[in-house]
């Protein structure tokens, strides 16, 4: 398929702007654009065709089953798209005076209240733009809390699980802490002995997802909380797996002091090909003074932005956060009401059903009921037939499914992490399990075919080594490299300069 630049023809355009009979305003010569940017030149029909062709080569939740573990690829209700486009939301400027934004502020305030209730905590900031940013915000809150108590120098370490998302350690570094890891035991819980050895007065806190990325609820969560609180440390909850426990167990009740929520996972903000998301943070009252400014407060019938927060960590994102995401999440939750619990119940039911069907065909690392997701290992296929998790994933594409997450969490070799979500019908779960069984059989009878999968997508298996070595990251207008051949004389990443 051609790039949009390859379809460009000089002189074509799709845009029309009003023109007025006004004297032109001149840019001083030293600041004036020299060469125009080489933007595409197409008329509207060809732009529409181009993006339609791109959409046709993309698989979304709307297309089919998308069981990416820890991503919660649930159905995105269409009514949410209708309401987010209401002019009163869509065309509202973020610096509009408060009295001209009462509907928006009320929506945000109500969402804050809802998230506090779901988390079992006291105060919420909606500002962070995504889960990772929520994590960083949470860690900054930890640092501010300890600085306020005169313990800033002392509290140097944050502990993460060995099953943690890569974002956890990355956030720890960005927040200026040092990292320690705690191990997972044979039952899939945190190893309490290892934890007791590592937690002391130099510990700022724990970052944990519960259920973990193994899809398992930590059976000792109360002891874990005691160990940290006993040392004067805090507990941070990575909300990536909140879909398992809404209305069933609340992070605040588990002992967590700070929670980030992924609005694009649990609360149906569409994933958009990679984003946007929303990563609001809920906190225990002891941390409320440090929340980013402004928060939304209620004063009688008025909703206001509270900038008067002298202990606030500051601002992590522009304005009040990704408002369009709030609208969708709010609408999603209002459609459920207290029945939100049912969402989590069905998510957990669906995952356990799939687990029961697949555990004899694939290796099961932990012999327990799972929560909303579970991890299998393709280790048996690798040992017996040389077929690995990557091959299974690529072959699933031929059966019309998006693969699950692979090679994560790191402690399970040849990991396949499967999260169906609550919006899938039983027939889809059965069809996926049937395909997984067929693939296991194909591994025995025709392993070479699996190693060359996918066979039925717009492209065959792609060469990621070549991509990393050649680093062609934009179109080369003067001479776009032809990657089917060898690297050209003088072609390096630097050669893309100005090309």
């Amino acid at each position, binding site marked *: 398929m051609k790039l949009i630049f390859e379809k460009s023809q000089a002189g074509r355009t799709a845009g029309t702007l009003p023109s007025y009979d006004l004297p032109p305003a001149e840019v001083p010569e030293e600041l004036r654009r020299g060469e125009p940017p080489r933007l595409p030149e197409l008329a509207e029909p060809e732009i529409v065709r181009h993006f339609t062709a791109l959409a046709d080569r993309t698989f979304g939740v709307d297309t089919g089953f998308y069981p990416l573990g820890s991503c919660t690829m649930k159905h995105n209700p269409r009514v949410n798209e209708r309401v987010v486009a209401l002019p009163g939301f869509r065309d509202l400027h973020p610096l509009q005076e408060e009295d001209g934004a009462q509907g928006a502020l009320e929506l945000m305030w109500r969402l804050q209240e809802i998230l506090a209730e779901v988390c079992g905590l006291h105060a919420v900031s909606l500002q962070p733009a995504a889960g990772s940013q929520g994590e960083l915000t949470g860690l900054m809150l930890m640092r501010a809390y300890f600085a306020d108590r005169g313990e800033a120098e002392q509290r140097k370490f944050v502990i993460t699980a060995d099953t943690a998302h890569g974002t956890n350690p990355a956030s720890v570094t960005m927040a200026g802490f040092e990292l320690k890891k705690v191990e997972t035991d044979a039952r899939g819980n945190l190893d309490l002995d290892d934890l007791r050895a590592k937690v002391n007065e130099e510990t700022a806190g724990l970052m944990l997802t519960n259920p973990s990325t193994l899809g398992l609820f930590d059976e000792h969560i109360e002891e874990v909380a005691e160990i940290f609180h006993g040392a004067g440390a805090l507990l941070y909850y990575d909300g990536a797996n909140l879909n398992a426990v809404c209305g069933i167990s609340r992070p605040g009740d588990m002992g967590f002091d700070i929670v980030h929520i992924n609005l694009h996972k649990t609360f149906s903000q569409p994933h958009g090909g990679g984003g946007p998301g929303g990563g609001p943070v809920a906190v225990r009252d002891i941390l409320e003074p440090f929340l980013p400014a402004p928060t939304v407060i209620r004063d009688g019938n008025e909703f206001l932005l509270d900038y008067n927060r002298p202990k606030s960590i500051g601002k992590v994102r522009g304005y009040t956060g990704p408002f369009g995401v709030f609208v969708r999440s709010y609408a999603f939750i209002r459609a459920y009401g207290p029945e939100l619990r049912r969402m989590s119940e069905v998510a957990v039911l669906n995952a356990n059903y799939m687990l029961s069907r697949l555990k004899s065909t694939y290796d099961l690392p932990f012999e327990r009921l799972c929560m909303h997701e579970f991890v299998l290992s393709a280790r048996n296929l690798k040992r017996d037939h040389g077929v690995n998790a990557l091959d299974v994933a690529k072959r699933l594409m031929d059966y019309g499914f998006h693969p699950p997450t692979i*090679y994560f969490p790191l402690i399970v070799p040849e990991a396949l992490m499967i999260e169906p979500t609550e919006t899938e019908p039983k027939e889809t779960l059965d069809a996926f399990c049937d395909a997984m069984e067929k693939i296991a059989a194909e591994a025995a009878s025709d392993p070479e075919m699996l190693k060359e999968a996918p066979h039925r997508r717009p492209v065959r298996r792609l060469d*990621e*080594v070549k991509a*990393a070595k050649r680093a062609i990251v934009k179109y080369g207008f003067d001479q776009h490299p032809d990657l089917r051949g060898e690297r050209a004389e003088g072609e390096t990443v630097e050669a893309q300069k100005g090309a």
Partner: protein
Amino acid sequence: MAADESYPENLRYHREHDWARVDGDTAVVGITWYAQDALGELVHFEPPDEGASVAADESYGEVESVKAVSDLISPLTGEVIEVNQMVQEEPEKVNDDPYGDGWLIKIRLSDPGEADGLLDVAAYKALLQEQ
């Protein structure tokens, strides 16, 4: 074309899967067959500067494959006198020939006796059995 598994007799080995070929007060250093196999095809080598100091058991640079990054752990202490330019341009040389063309850096040793503390090939192979 990745090399066949081998661990030359005449080299000294470090538990972090590096080798050293000691010659008087200099040593040539690289990563073992086991390391390149675990990483997969290398796409990038981030070397230290010539003249930089390296210390035994500490990181002196990085190698990357598509899916992994690995710190390079120095087996010995000294000063970097040469960096393998060819590997910087063609990192896959490390997979093809980890002990020959795939060498990474040359060091002038602070203490030539330090190499005695490294593993011989039998001890290194025993370590691999435990992996």
